[in-house]
């Protein structure tokens, strides 16, 4: 039977190293199958997160041959098998053990976002054409691959100032909800630091749900921030009138 050679990161907060495993290949096999084989036969304490194994829960994110992927959707027959397949944990988050990282920061960012709040007295009617663009954002499975590749987080480690693509997608879903009655523009600017994003589109490239994060979520939200806070005409009007606005 054909075999693949895996180099899987084994270690914890203190450090670690790749360990080599040989895994028999079956038709249609994905990387997560190989990791399960390793757990079941070679290294029972290999730490891996997974749940649905069908690309719906976003648990099994890792970096396969340097590419951030869901391991349940990464086919072995799409990888070169003449060289070892490397599997490493997501780089942007602290390692707990092996492929499992501490993603709790994401849950803390989420708590900064004001929840859905409908306009008072709305009639609960919505049309598909208005719902369509928000449903794109609601597809997010929180695999955090976009957070992992975003250079503001990955290279510059601006966890304190920046929310990351996942949470711009969440804010976009709330802001563009047809019955939304609350503005989150100030939160976007001050708490989630959307200005730090310089639209390199790395997040969009890795999204397994093919959400057009940059084009459909981040850019329209940046425009809202600009309209609210940096429109020169509006700034002048506000100065003259001394009017209290959401920005003021």
């Amino acid at each position, binding site marked *: 039977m054909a075999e693949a050679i895996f180099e899987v990161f084994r270690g914890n907060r203190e450090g670690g190293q790749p360990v080599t495993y040989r895994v028999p290949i079956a038709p249609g*096999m994905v990387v997560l199958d190989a990791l399960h084989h390793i757990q079941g*036969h070679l290294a*029972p304490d290999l730490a891996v997160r*997974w749940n649905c194994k*069908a690309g719906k*829960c976003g648990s099994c994110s890792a970096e396969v041959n340097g590419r951030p992927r869901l391991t349940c959707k990464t086919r072995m027959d799409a990888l070169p098998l003449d060289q070892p397949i490397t599997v490493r944990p997501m780089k942007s988050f602290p390692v707990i053990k092996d492929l499992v990282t501490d993603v709790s920061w994401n849950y803390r960012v989420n708590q900064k976002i004001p929840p859905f709040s409908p306009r008072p007295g709305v009639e609960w009617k*919505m049309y598909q054409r208005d719902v369509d663009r928000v449903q794109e954002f609601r*597809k997010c499975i929180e695999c955090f691959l976009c957070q992992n590749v975003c250079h503001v987080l990955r290279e510059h480690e601006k966890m304190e100032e920046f929310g990351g693509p996942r949470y711009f997608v969440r804010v976009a879903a709330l802001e563009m909800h047809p019955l939304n009655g609350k503005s989150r523009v100030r939160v976007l600017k001050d708490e989630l630091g959307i200005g730090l994003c310089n639209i390199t589109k790395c997040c969009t490239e890795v999204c397994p749900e093919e959400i057009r994060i940059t084009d459909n979520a981040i850019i329209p939200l940046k425009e809202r921030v600009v309209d609210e806070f940096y429109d020169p005409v509006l700034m002048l009007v506000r100065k003259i009138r001394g009017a209290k606005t959401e920005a003021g």
Partner: protein
Amino acid sequence: MSTDYETHDHDVLIIGAGGAGLRAAISALALGAKVGVVCKSLLGKAHTVMAEGGIAAAMANVDTADDWRTHFRDTMRGGKMLNHWRMAQLHAQEAPERVRELEQWGALFDRTPDGQILQRAFGGHTFRRLCHVGDRTGLEMIRTLQDRGVQLGIDVFMECTVTRLLKDGNRVAGAFGYWREQGRFVVFRAKSIVIATGGIGKAWKITSNSWEYTGDGMALAYGAGAELMDMEFVQFHPTGMVWPPGVQGILVTEAVRGEGGILRNKLGQRFMEKYDPKKMELSTRDVVARAIYTEVREGRGTEHGGAYLDISQKPADYVKKKLPSMYHQFKELADVDITKGPMEVGPTCHYMMGGIRVEAESAKSSVPGLFAAGEAAAGLHGANRLGGNSLSDLLVFGHRAGVAAAEDAKRTPAVSVDSTQIEQAAREALAPFERKVGESPYAIHRDLQETMQNLVGIFRDREDLIRALEELEKLKERAEHLSVEGSRLFNPGWHLALDLKSMLTVSEAVTRSALARQESRGAHSRIDYPGLDSTWGAKNNVTVRDGSAMALHQSPVPPLPDDLKQILAEEK
């Protein structure tokens, strides 16, 4: 030995953070209770996220003739009349309100042309009834509940597993568990507990269920003295993927058939004409699963031992819009474009109708302070669950359990937990590390899955079930002597060793109940007793712990009141 552990105090502790657990938490919080939610995975990854087709609720947005009575009748008929009538009634009556609530919390369902929530057809439902979001309804539901719960301020204990319920006399008073991350112990003191841990599918080899589905909640409740009911009724979903091997068992949503998908065998015959000419592909799951199994067994299966499911007669854009995750799933995992050709599908272990026996109104178990909702509870679905009735079950009875548990906690003075129970739970949890030589838990789990798959599957007979009980005894013995490698730091081998105990307990309850029921009804098919038996139709199997042994007895199905009998007699 003196065990190190941290302690947390709550009025209501909820074990499980899927739809039922989160919905219970929201309702308990609304009544002012201090609520803790413990979950084995990260928040938002529970199995509810996998639900695809929709939430059944008689909102009558599409078919205006629909009402709770019809939903009630469909549910009872689908369950072959073994359902608890009161649960089926409450479920049908309250589901629409629970769906509207989700919308008010931000969920965005697909719409009708006049701006209402769109509903689709599904097996066993007389009318188009399933509120949905393409084929990712569960994701929409869990995200909505998760955001609502976080907003209201639930304490969430992620990646934390409960291994034992703690008692104060007769009453539950808390739970003992461990943090998966560091392996440290934790004790939760609580006046009431809601079990919302889902099902048991991981005891079978071919399953749509994730690693979490090991029957923990049922085993915990059983250990604490609660009754389990209807354990023989395990649903095999008719359509799981069959090829390639790695994806075997992954769910193919019933929405494919709801949207017009057609089943054929390798000869091109639309075989459902033979098994249910009236409802065809939209027959109930038990019937369709047996049909596919029979076609394969009789030599008319596809290349990889399944049936063809074809939706390619519909326009490609429509398929991609209504079944987007199926489109991607087949394209990426099986190299099949479902807009151009058929899928190969076969039965997969999917859902547990049985579980913890509860009172209909309050979701209360037979142990004071202990409640259960969702898949972990029994009663609503009887012998077979209709598609779409699970998500509505989670909402209706999650809410009811949360309310009842919060009220119960209010009435209860402080509880206390003695350290003996905690020490014992800690010793049991650490035992696999003490044994330096022993089998790997993975090997025992594989053999358990083989046993349940081969001997306690879709078709059963006495001989197989007796053999299964013998095998389970051996597996229990082996599990007593297994050992795990490594440390307590995020160690899946250790986690599996502890989950195995739950799987072995529920597997035994399933097998004993299946052996006792000498008839075929719903999801329980006995080759040696192929027909319905009216005596058995009036009885539920109930499993309780008797010392270290498992005891089984029968309990009469609660009789229907006359007004509901009337509804059932109506033909529609």
